[in-house]
């Protein structure tokens, strides 16, 4: 027996010794990561003997490029590697975006060679982590990679020495298009830089404009059921209540259908009336204070309304587990009447299979309800923001080339190409001289797919309302919803895209956020479905528990970040 014990001990020691040796000695690839690896001179460009005045240069790496007559940067055929999730539509046709026509054109125009690293769909996070841990970083990271998958987002990425700070390279000479398009728009002035004054939004996609930002979500109801109640289109919450009750009396089982995709929450559909966000932080009336919707007193009124509707059977009971497809099928069957949903799904799930074949089942757009007639909205969730950020890593040998390439995204012609594709293959011109995207069906040829657009590279989503409402989305887009969204105010929306957090703040958020969200979601459903009775005291208990879960600290963090934003 003793011998066996000795044996076990001996072997364990031996193996742990081996382990130690191996792991300390062979600690793989954690070399020094100094932030400007591009100190060494590269073959990117030995400055020509006679330098033109308008040559674009960067002393640290010795790069030098020129522009051609149209103003496109000529990047001398350097190879740039880009990490970017691939869109689902193209997964079967291409293994890399470099095979698509629009990218080929881009490479040709700018004389650059692009290589893409695409993570498998659905596994972006793991792929990203493994890429960062390895020692071969790409030159650029697209599609919000850092914000979505790096702990602490871009602030931390800069601090950890992952990203290249190109603030100094942003200038009228290097990035004229970027400055014209984004930096000059007052709505975004503060959002261009982060709290440290670094410009980190080169290449970012801009949505919406002062004149017409849109939202592709809408509240709509079946026209015939509305007419059967004999009422006008509802405006206030009370109108809604009366209408839903009347519909139920007419035989619609669950007049309001909502589902697990939670657009009724995230789009502030009904909470807007109470002046709060249903799910999130928002800016209060004074345009300075940050509050959290589910923590506010008005949340009690909001919950009472929703729970009253649920108790009277006006809302479908399985909404938490339901998906879009079921929602639309219930409406098609007459089990439901109203829903708030993404117009993107409305078309394939309802308009094409049902409404276009049977006009009696047509849907009509309804505005979000207000509390009292004449109230205005502040919390419309629109697409007015910037996103789809692009980053340059420190390991790149050609930082100037990256900067110039990102700037070229804002060129009108290139941008048109990314949004629409190659003429004839990706889009066709309509009679009104707008490009209409060719729909992708099972019969679309490979050639057509190769020539189609790449919307993750789009830099500006359309804000020309005429075009949006007529040619681009004319079929089954519920024009009324789009028009409604345009008219509303989004001044109360906070938008995480504006904020930067310090590392302590990030840590606090990561410690407490999940607990808080879990509790919030749980209690919201319990109150609405009536499993927990909604009374003054139970709501107070709920607020107290939120406070114990560090609600106030988290609000304070957002407040501090917003204040810093205002002071930029």
């Amino acid at each position, binding site marked *: 027996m003793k011998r*066996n014990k000795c044996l076990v001990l001996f*072997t364990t020691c031996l193996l742990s010794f081996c382990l130690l040796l191996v792991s300390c000695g062979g600690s*793989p*690839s954690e070399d020094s990561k100094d932030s400007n690896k591009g100190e060494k001179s590269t073959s990117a460009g030995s400055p020509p003997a006679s330098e033109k005045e308008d040559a674009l240069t960067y002393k640290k790496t010795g790069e030098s490029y020129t522009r051609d007559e149209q103003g496109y940067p000529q990047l001398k055929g350097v190879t740039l590697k880009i990490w970017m999730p691939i869109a689902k539509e193209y997964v079967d046709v291409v293994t890399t975006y470099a095979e698509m026509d629009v990218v080929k054109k881009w490479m040709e125009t700018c004389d650059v060679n692009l290589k893409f690293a695409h993570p498998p769909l659905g596994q972006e996070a793991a792929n990203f982590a*493994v890429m960062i841990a390895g020692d071969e970083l790409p030159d650029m990271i697209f599609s919000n990679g850092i914000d979505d998958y790096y702990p602490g987002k871009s602030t931390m990425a800069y601090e950890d020495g992952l990203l290249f700070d190109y603030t100094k390279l942003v200038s009228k000479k290097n990035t004229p298009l970027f400055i014209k398009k984004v930096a000059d728009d007052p709505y975004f002035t503060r959002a261009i830089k982060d709290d440290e004054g670094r410009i980190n939004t080169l290449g970012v996609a801009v949505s919406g404009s002062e004149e017409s930002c849109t939202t592709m979500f809408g509240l709509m109801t079946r026209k015939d059921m509305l007419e059967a109640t004999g009422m006008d289109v509802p405006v206030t919450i009370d109108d809604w209540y009366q209408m839903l009750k009347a519909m139920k009396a007419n035989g619609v089982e669950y007049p309001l259908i909502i589902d697990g995709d939670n657009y009724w929450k*995230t789009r502030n559909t009904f909470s807007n009336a109470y002046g709060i966000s249903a799910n999130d932080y928002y800016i209060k009336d004074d345009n300075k204070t940050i509050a959290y919707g589910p923590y506010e007193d008005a949340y009690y009124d909001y919950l009472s309304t929703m729970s009253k509707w649920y108790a009277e059977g006006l809302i479908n009971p399985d909404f938490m587990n339901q998906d879009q497809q079921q929602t639309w*099928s219930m409406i*098609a069957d007459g089990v439901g009447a109203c829903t708030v949903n993404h117009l993107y799904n409305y078309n394939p799930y309802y308009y094409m299979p049902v409404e276009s074949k049977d006009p009696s089942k047509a849907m009509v757009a309804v505005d979000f309800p207000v509390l009292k007639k004449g109230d205005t909205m502040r919390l419309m969730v629109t697409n007015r923001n910037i996103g789809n950020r692009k980053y340059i890593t420190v390991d790149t040998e050609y930082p100037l080339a990256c900067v110039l390439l990102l700037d070229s995204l804002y060129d009108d012609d290139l941008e048109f190409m990314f949004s629409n594709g190659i003429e004839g293959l990706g889009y066709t011109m309509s009679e009104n001289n707008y490009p209409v995207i060719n729909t*992708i069906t099972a019969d679309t040829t490979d050639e057509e797919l190769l020539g189609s657009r790449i*919307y993750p590279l789009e830099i500006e989503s359309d804000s020309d309302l005429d075009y949006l409402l007529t040619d681009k989305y004319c079929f089954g887009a519920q024009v009324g919803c789009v028009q409604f969204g345009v008219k509303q105010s989004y001044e109360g929306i906070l938008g995480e895209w504006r904020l930067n957090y310090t590392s302590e703040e990030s840590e606090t958020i990561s410690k407490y956020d999940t607990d808080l969200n879990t509790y919030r979601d749980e209690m919201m459903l319990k109150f609405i479905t009536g499993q927990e009775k909604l009374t003054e005291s139970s709501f107070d208990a709920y607020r107290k528990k939120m406070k114990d879960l560090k609600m106030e600290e988290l609000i304070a963090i957002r407040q501090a970040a917003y204040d810093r934003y205002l002071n930029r």
Partner: protein
Amino acid sequence: MSKIHGSKSETAFRVINGLFMFILAGITLYPLLYVVFGSFSDPAKLSRFRGALLKPMGFSLKGYEAVFSMKNFWLGYRNTLFYVAAGTAISMLLTILGAYALSVKGYMLKKPVMFLIVFTMYFSGGMIPTYLVVKQIGFVDTIWSVLIPGCISVYNLIVLRSSFQSIPRNLIESASIDGAGHIRILFRIVLPLSSAALATITLFYGASRWGAWYSAMVYLPNRRDLYPLQMFLRELMVTENNMDAVADEFSTESANFYLLKNVIKYAAVIVSTVPILCLYPFLQKYFIKGVLVGSLKE
């Protein structure tokens, strides 16, 4: 299994048992039937249906047409067949060696090694450290990264070891007295007598290789052409529900194609599952052969 002897209670038992088995088969067949019905359905009709499918909603082969024309699908199939064949062979070889060595009695390092191997079932470095090791060896972006890491399942090793330990000792003794070394004992005596266990473990490894995707996901970042079938299937199942941010754009897909995606999912599951279902009946004959073990005279 008592044979021909019949009695009233025996017959009653047999009848009830048979009926019970029938019901069980029905209940367990249903999920696959559901998927089969879904795969043959018309996309538009299927989207309208809620509840338990009892037949295809309008017969249509569109789902299968779309699946058979997906290039990635066939690429994945080819890759998976290779990984299953080569991977199961490698796994079986190493597992047999390990199980045999750990089933022999009397040598010093046996117990500690056994403990250390079981230990690895519970503690591992995690995804990133393992990736870094595999990268250092140079397996990343090659087929070896799918074949080797994870090729030995400790669970299977334990099962096989148990089977080897049950071989009657005297057979092995007499062979070793006759001068046979361990290799000969393993291949001439132990393996032939363990056919049931070997068939079971082959099935386990085969099925797990067939459904494997994790290794490919982590270790093949730049080689989509080496992806197994399951990776493409998983990509097919990815839903795009979280569309916050900027891109709440209209997709270019038409309604029909969008609906077709659901039918494609079902068709893809059927097409990719049918081969592995055929493996078991093929191996079933080895389960009968194992009867010989118990009937050996001492």
